[in-house]
């Protein structure tokens, strides 16, 4: 019973990923685009977690964990580069 629900949720989350693209392409500043990356990262992590349960592959939980943890590294890279460059 839970299977179709999870599949539907996966489709909805996938559409959300595409919607993020509007902000990524629209900008206007680099930080706005970066927000798109952050939201994409956590949406992707949620999607992987859903797939790990619906397909029964436990390794996808690790992928979700890694994706969440490293999404903030991209943001930190942006912030430190902004600090260092005039």
């Amino acid at each position, binding site marked *: 019973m839970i299977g179709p629900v999870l599949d539907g949720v996966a489709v909805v989350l996938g559409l959300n990923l595409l919607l993020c693209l509007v*902000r990524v392409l629209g900008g206007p500043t680099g930080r706005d685009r970066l927000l798109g990356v952050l939201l994409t990262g956590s949406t992707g992590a949620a999607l992987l977690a859903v797939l790990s349960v619906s397909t029964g592959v436990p390794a996808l939980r690790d992928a979700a964990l890694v994706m969440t943890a490293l999404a903030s590294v991209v943001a930190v890279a942006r*912030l430190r580069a902004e600090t260092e460059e005039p």
Partner: protein
Amino acid sequence: MSAGLLLEILSAVLVVAGAGFFTVGTVGLVRLPDLRTRLHALTKADNLGLGLVVLGLVLQAGSVGAAVKLLVVWFLAMPASAVVAHLMSRGGGLGATGGAAEGPGTPGEGGAGGR
């Protein structure tokens, strides 16, 4: 048997609610007018969405280890998105001067930063 069914229904409700919050957050990111309001949409709706999805999945996880790992995903996402949002709403990754330098454009934050 009926307890299992109840658990499945609860899990489905939580996951669907989480997906709903993700959608709200994404729509907010697209529709809201400037960086700080977008940050607001992103952090709140996004954390709640991830949290609800994770809670729903924890009920289906099967083992304690799997459940804990799913919860760790959420616990990792919460401080990360809060801190990153805070830093991005300031003038830059700069120190105390960064926030004040950007102040005048935005009344609420600028007043607090000026003091």
